[in-house]
Protein backbone atom coordinates (compact mmCIF):
# COMPACT_ATOMS: atom_id res chain seq x y z
CA UNK A 1 0.00 0.00 0.00
CA UNK A 2 2.71 2.46 1.00
CA UNK A 3 4.63 1.70 -2.14
CA UNK A 4 1.80 2.59 -4.47
CA UNK A 5 0.71 5.58 -2.41
CA UNK A 6 3.99 7.39 -2.94
CA UNK A 7 4.75 6.11 -6.43
CA UNK A 8 4.05 9.58 -7.90
CA UNK A 9 7.01 10.88 -5.89
CA UNK A 10 9.46 8.48 -7.53
CA UNK A 11 10.74 10.80 -10.29
CA UNK A 12 11.69 13.39 -7.66
CA UNK A 13 13.81 10.84 -5.83
CA UNK A 14 16.01 10.85 -8.91
CA UNK A 15 18.82 13.29 -8.07
CA UNK A 16 19.06 14.82 -11.53
CA UNK A 17 15.31 15.58 -11.70
CA UNK A 18 15.31 17.04 -8.19
CA UNK A 19 18.38 19.16 -8.97
CA UNK A 20 16.65 20.81 -11.89
CA UNK A 21 13.31 21.12 -10.08
CA UNK A 22 15.04 22.92 -7.19
CA UNK A 23 16.87 25.13 -9.66
CA UNK A 24 13.59 26.16 -11.30
CA UNK A 25 11.83 26.80 -7.98
CA UNK A 26 14.71 28.66 -6.34
CA UNK A 27 14.30 32.15 -7.90
CA UNK A 28 10.54 32.19 -7.26
CA UNK A 29 10.89 30.95 -3.68
CA UNK A 30 13.70 33.41 -2.96
CA UNK A 31 11.81 36.34 -4.51
CA UNK A 32 8.59 35.53 -2.65
CA UNK A 33 10.49 34.95 0.60
CA UNK A 34 12.24 38.31 0.36
CA UNK A 35 8.99 40.11 -0.49
CA UNK A 36 6.89 38.59 2.31
CA UNK A 37 9.69 38.85 4.86
CA UNK A 38 10.24 42.56 4.19
CA UNK A 39 6.50 43.26 3.95
CA UNK A 40 5.74 41.53 7.25
CA UNK A 41 8.73 42.99 9.08
CA UNK A 42 8.35 46.58 7.86
CA UNK A 43 4.63 46.47 8.55
CA UNK A 44 5.32 45.16 12.05
CA UNK A 45 8.18 47.55 12.72
CA UNK A 46 6.65 50.79 11.49
CA UNK A 47 2.91 50.47 11.00
CA UNK A 48 1.55 48.19 13.73
CA UNK A 49 0.49 49.95 16.91
CA UNK A 50 2.73 49.75 19.98
CA UNK A 51 1.80 47.26 22.66
CA UNK A 52 -0.11 48.75 25.59
CA UNK A 53 2.19 47.03 28.10
CA UNK A 54 5.49 46.45 26.31
CA UNK A 55 5.60 49.58 24.16
CA UNK A 56 7.73 49.22 21.05
CA UNK A 57 9.92 46.42 22.42
CA UNK A 58 7.22 43.90 21.46
CA UNK A 59 8.12 44.45 17.76
CA UNK A 60 10.83 41.82 18.21
CA UNK A 61 7.90 39.38 17.97
CA UNK A 62 7.96 39.74 14.16
CA UNK A 63 11.23 37.83 13.97
CA UNK A 64 11.28 35.98 17.28
CA UNK A 65 8.07 34.00 16.82
CA UNK A 66 8.57 33.09 13.13
CA UNK A 67 12.18 31.98 13.67
CA UNK A 68 11.24 29.98 16.77
CA UNK A 69 8.29 28.25 15.10
CA UNK A 70 10.28 27.40 11.98
CA UNK A 71 13.30 26.29 13.99
CA UNK A 72 10.95 23.49 15.06
CA UNK A 73 9.37 23.18 11.61
CA UNK A 74 12.81 22.77 10.05
CA UNK A 75 13.67 20.15 12.65
CA UNK A 76 10.50 18.18 11.87
CA UNK A 77 11.28 18.27 8.14
CA UNK A 78 14.87 17.23 8.80
CA UNK A 79 13.75 14.34 11.03
CA UNK A 80 11.18 13.16 8.47
CA UNK A 81 13.86 13.25 5.76
CA UNK A 82 16.22 11.36 8.09
CA UNK A 83 13.56 8.70 8.71
CA UNK A 84 12.80 8.28 4.99
CA UNK A 85 16.52 8.15 4.26
CA UNK A 86 17.17 5.50 6.89
CA UNK A 87 14.13 3.29 6.33
CA UNK A 88 13.72 3.40 2.55
CA UNK A 89 17.32 4.31 1.72
CA UNK A 90 16.22 7.24 -0.43
CA UNK A 91 19.48 9.06 -1.01
CA UNK A 92 18.03 12.52 -1.74
CA UNK A 93 16.25 12.34 1.63
CA UNK A 94 19.58 11.59 3.32
CA UNK A 95 21.15 14.58 1.60
CA UNK A 96 18.19 16.77 2.61
CA UNK A 97 19.19 16.19 6.25
CA UNK A 98 22.56 17.79 5.51
CA UNK A 99 20.91 20.61 3.57
CA UNK A 100 18.39 21.54 6.28
CA UNK A 101 20.52 21.23 9.45
CA UNK A 102 22.50 24.51 9.07
CA UNK A 103 19.32 26.46 8.22
CA UNK A 104 17.61 25.08 11.31
CA UNK A 105 20.66 25.95 13.42
CA UNK A 106 20.60 29.56 12.18
CA UNK A 107 16.83 29.87 12.82
CA UNK A 108 17.32 28.49 16.34
CA UNK A 109 20.19 30.90 17.00
CA UNK A 110 17.98 33.78 15.80
CA UNK A 111 15.16 32.67 18.11
CA UNK A 112 17.57 32.53 21.07
CA UNK A 113 19.28 35.86 20.35
CA UNK A 114 16.07 37.79 19.72
CA UNK A 115 14.58 36.13 22.78
CA UNK A 116 17.49 37.37 24.89
CA UNK A 117 17.20 40.88 23.45
CA UNK A 118 13.49 40.85 24.28
CA UNK A 119 13.96 39.31 27.70
CA UNK A 120 16.40 41.96 28.88
CA UNK A 121 13.97 44.93 28.78
CA UNK A 122 10.87 42.88 29.73
CA UNK A 123 12.15 40.37 32.29
CA UNK A 124 15.28 42.25 33.37
CA UNK A 125 17.63 39.47 32.23
CA UNK A 126 19.19 38.28 28.97
CA UNK A 127 18.98 34.66 29.95
CA UNK A 128 17.34 32.44 32.53
CA UNK A 129 17.51 28.64 32.81
CA UNK A 130 13.82 28.22 32.28
CA UNK A 131 12.16 25.29 30.52
CA UNK A 132 11.32 27.04 27.24
CA UNK A 133 14.72 28.70 26.84
CA UNK A 134 16.68 25.63 27.87
CA UNK A 135 14.79 23.26 25.55
CA UNK A 136 15.30 25.69 22.64
CA UNK A 137 19.03 25.76 23.47
CA UNK A 138 18.99 21.94 23.41
CA UNK A 139 17.48 22.22 19.90
CA UNK A 140 20.50 24.29 18.82
CA UNK A 141 22.83 21.62 20.21
CA UNK A 142 20.86 18.91 18.38
CA UNK A 143 21.33 20.76 15.09
CA UNK A 144 25.04 21.25 15.79
CA UNK A 145 25.30 17.59 16.76
CA UNK A 146 23.71 16.49 13.47
CA UNK A 147 26.10 18.73 11.49
CA UNK A 148 29.14 17.54 13.45
CA UNK A 149 28.25 13.83 13.26
CA UNK A 150 27.58 14.01 9.52
CA UNK A 151 31.11 15.25 8.98
CA UNK A 152 32.82 13.09 11.59
CA UNK A 153 33.24 9.90 9.56
CA UNK A 154 35.68 9.29 6.75
CA UNK A 155 32.91 7.40 5.00
CA UNK A 156 30.20 9.97 4.20
CA UNK A 157 27.34 7.42 4.05
CA UNK A 158 28.11 6.30 7.60
CA UNK A 159 28.17 9.88 8.87
CA UNK A 160 24.76 10.58 7.36
CA UNK A 161 23.35 7.42 8.95
CA UNK A 162 24.55 8.33 12.45
CA UNK A 163 23.47 11.97 12.03
CA UNK A 164 20.03 10.79 10.85
CA UNK A 165 19.67 8.63 13.95
CA UNK A 166 20.42 11.60 16.20
CA UNK A 167 17.96 13.75 14.22
CA UNK A 168 15.19 11.16 14.75
CA UNK A 169 15.93 10.64 18.45
CA UNK A 170 16.00 14.43 18.97
CA UNK A 171 12.35 14.71 17.91
CA UNK A 172 11.37 14.08 21.57
CA UNK A 173 12.61 17.62 22.23
CA UNK A 174 9.94 19.19 19.99
CA UNK A 175 6.90 18.51 22.22
CA UNK A 176 9.04 19.51 25.20
CA UNK A 177 9.70 22.91 23.62
CA UNK A 178 6.07 23.40 22.62
CA UNK A 179 4.48 22.37 25.92
CA UNK A 180 7.25 23.68 28.18
CA UNK A 181 5.23 26.82 28.86
CA UNK A 182 2.32 24.69 30.10
CA UNK A 183 4.16 21.89 31.88
CA UNK A 184 6.51 24.06 33.88
CA UNK A 185 6.20 27.32 35.67
CA UNK A 186 8.22 29.54 33.39
CA UNK A 187 9.04 33.15 32.73
CA UNK A 188 8.18 32.68 29.07
CA UNK A 189 4.62 33.56 28.13
CA UNK A 190 2.17 30.96 26.84
CA UNK A 191 1.19 30.38 23.23
CA UNK A 192 -0.35 33.32 21.41
CA UNK A 193 -1.12 31.91 17.98
CA UNK A 194 -0.08 28.23 17.96
CA UNK A 195 -3.15 27.00 19.81
CA UNK A 196 -6.61 25.88 18.81
CA UNK A 197 -8.44 28.74 20.48
CA UNK A 198 -8.74 32.20 18.94
CA UNK A 199 -5.33 33.95 18.81
CA UNK A 200 -4.89 36.33 21.74
CA UNK A 201 -3.53 39.15 19.61
CA UNK A 202 -5.20 42.06 17.82
CA UNK A 203 -5.60 41.73 14.00
CA UNK A 204 -3.48 44.87 13.46
CA UNK A 205 -0.58 42.94 15.02
CA UNK A 206 -1.60 39.46 13.86
CA UNK A 207 -1.50 40.17 10.12
CA UNK A 208 2.13 41.33 9.92
CA UNK A 209 3.04 38.41 12.19
CA UNK A 210 1.35 35.89 9.87
CA UNK A 211 3.06 37.45 6.84
CA UNK A 212 6.44 37.29 8.61
CA UNK A 213 5.71 33.65 9.46
CA UNK A 214 5.08 32.96 5.77
CA UNK A 215 8.29 34.82 4.90
CA UNK A 216 10.42 32.66 7.19
CA UNK A 217 8.74 29.52 5.81
CA UNK A 218 9.44 30.54 2.22
CA UNK A 219 13.03 31.42 3.11
CA UNK A 220 13.45 27.99 4.70
CA UNK A 221 12.16 26.39 1.49
CA UNK A 222 14.37 28.56 -0.73
CA UNK A 223 17.54 27.92 1.30
CA UNK A 224 16.74 24.20 1.40
CA UNK A 225 16.49 24.19 -2.42
CA UNK A 226 19.81 25.99 -2.76
CA UNK A 227 21.63 23.78 -0.27
CA UNK A 228 20.10 20.53 -1.49
CA UNK A 229 21.43 21.29 -4.97
CA UNK A 230 24.94 21.55 -3.53
CA UNK A 231 24.55 18.21 -1.72
CA UNK A 232 23.27 16.53 -4.89
CA UNK A 233 26.33 17.77 -6.79
CA UNK A 234 28.72 16.52 -4.10
CA UNK A 235 27.26 13.02 -3.99
CA UNK A 236 26.63 12.71 -7.72
CA UNK A 237 29.90 14.24 -8.88
CA UNK A 238 31.04 11.08 -10.67
CA UNK A 239 27.84 10.77 -12.69
CA UNK A 240 27.94 11.82 -16.34
CA UNK A 241 25.05 14.28 -15.96
CA UNK A 242 26.97 16.30 -13.35
CA UNK A 243 30.12 16.25 -15.48
CA UNK A 244 28.18 17.52 -18.47
CA UNK A 245 26.50 20.16 -16.34
CA UNK A 246 29.68 21.67 -14.91
CA UNK A 247 31.45 21.35 -18.27
CA UNK A 248 28.69 23.22 -20.03
CA UNK A 249 28.87 25.91 -17.39
CA UNK A 250 32.64 26.15 -17.62
CA UNK A 251 32.62 26.42 -21.39
CA UNK A 252 29.99 29.11 -21.75
CA UNK A 253 31.39 32.43 -20.67
CA UNK A 254 27.92 33.72 -19.80
CA UNK A 255 27.26 34.05 -16.08
CA UNK A 256 24.09 32.04 -15.96
CA UNK A 257 23.22 30.51 -12.58
CA UNK A 258 22.61 26.81 -12.96
Amino acid at each position, binding site marked *: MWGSMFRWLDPYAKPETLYHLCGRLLPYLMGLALFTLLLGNIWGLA*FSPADYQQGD*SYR*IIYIHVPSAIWSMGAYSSMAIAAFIGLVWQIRVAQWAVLAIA*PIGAVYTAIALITGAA*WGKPMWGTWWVWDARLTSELVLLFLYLGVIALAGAFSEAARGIKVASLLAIVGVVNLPIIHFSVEWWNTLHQGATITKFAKPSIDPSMLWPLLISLLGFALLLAA*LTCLRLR*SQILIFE*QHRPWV*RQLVDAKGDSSQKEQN
Partner: protein
Amino acid sequence: MAFTSWADFWQMGGYALFVWLSFGTTYALLLGLWWYSKRQHHSIQQQIRAKAAREQRVRQHQEREK
Protein backbone atom coordinates in the same frame (compact mmCIF):
# COMPACT_ATOMS: atom_id res chain seq x y z
CA MET B 1 2.11 54.65 10.81
CA ALA B 2 2.90 54.13 14.47
CA PHE B 3 5.59 56.82 14.60
CA THR B 4 5.48 60.55 13.97
CA SER B 5 9.03 61.01 12.63
CA TRP B 6 12.10 59.07 11.50
CA ALA B 7 13.89 59.98 14.72
CA ASP B 8 10.90 58.62 16.61
CA PHE B 9 11.05 55.42 14.55
CA TRP B 10 14.77 54.83 15.20
CA GLN B 11 14.29 55.41 18.92
CA MET B 12 11.63 52.67 19.15
CA GLY B 13 10.09 54.21 22.24
CA GLY B 14 13.35 53.84 24.15
CA TYR B 15 13.91 50.21 23.15
CA ALA B 16 16.17 51.00 20.18
CA LEU B 17 19.07 48.86 21.45
CA PHE B 18 16.99 45.72 21.84
CA VAL B 19 14.85 46.07 18.73
CA TRP B 20 17.71 46.95 16.38
CA LEU B 21 20.02 44.39 17.96
CA SER B 22 17.40 41.74 17.20
CA PHE B 23 16.68 42.79 13.64
CA GLY B 24 20.35 43.46 12.91
CA THR B 25 21.62 40.05 14.02
CA THR B 26 18.68 38.30 12.35
CA TYR B 27 19.35 39.79 8.93
CA ALA B 28 23.13 39.45 9.33
CA LEU B 29 22.76 35.72 10.11
CA LEU B 30 20.26 35.11 7.29
CA LEU B 31 22.36 37.00 4.74
CA GLY B 32 25.47 35.19 5.96
CA LEU B 33 23.84 31.77 5.53
CA TRP B 34 22.59 32.67 2.06
CA TRP B 35 25.98 34.01 1.00
CA TYR B 36 27.81 30.99 2.44
CA SER B 37 25.46 28.51 0.73
CA LYS B 38 25.72 30.36 -2.57
CA ARG B 39 29.53 30.42 -2.41
CA GLN B 40 29.63 26.75 -1.41
CA HIS B 41 27.51 25.80 -4.42
CA HIS B 42 29.85 27.73 -6.68
CA SER B 43 33.04 26.22 -5.24
CA ILE B 44 31.66 22.66 -5.47
CA GLN B 45 31.10 23.15 -9.19
CA GLN B 46 34.61 24.51 -9.58
CA GLN B 47 36.09 21.55 -7.70
CA ILE B 48 34.22 19.06 -9.85
CA ARG B 49 35.35 20.87 -12.99
CA ALA B 50 38.98 20.85 -11.82
CA LYS B 51 38.76 17.15 -10.96
CA ALA B 52 37.28 16.32 -14.38
CA ALA B 53 39.99 18.33 -16.13
CA ARG B 54 42.69 16.52 -14.15
CA GLU B 55 41.26 13.11 -15.02
CA GLN B 56 41.18 14.20 -18.65
CA ARG B 57 44.87 15.16 -18.53
CA VAL B 58 45.81 11.85 -16.87
CA ARG B 59 43.91 9.93 -19.55
CA GLN B 60 45.61 11.85 -22.37
CA HIS B 61 48.99 11.26 -20.80
CA GLN B 62 48.38 7.53 -20.42
CA GLU B 63 47.32 7.25 -24.06
CA ARG B 64 50.47 9.00 -25.19
CA GLU B 65 52.59 6.60 -23.12
CA LYS B 66 51.19 3.59 -24.93
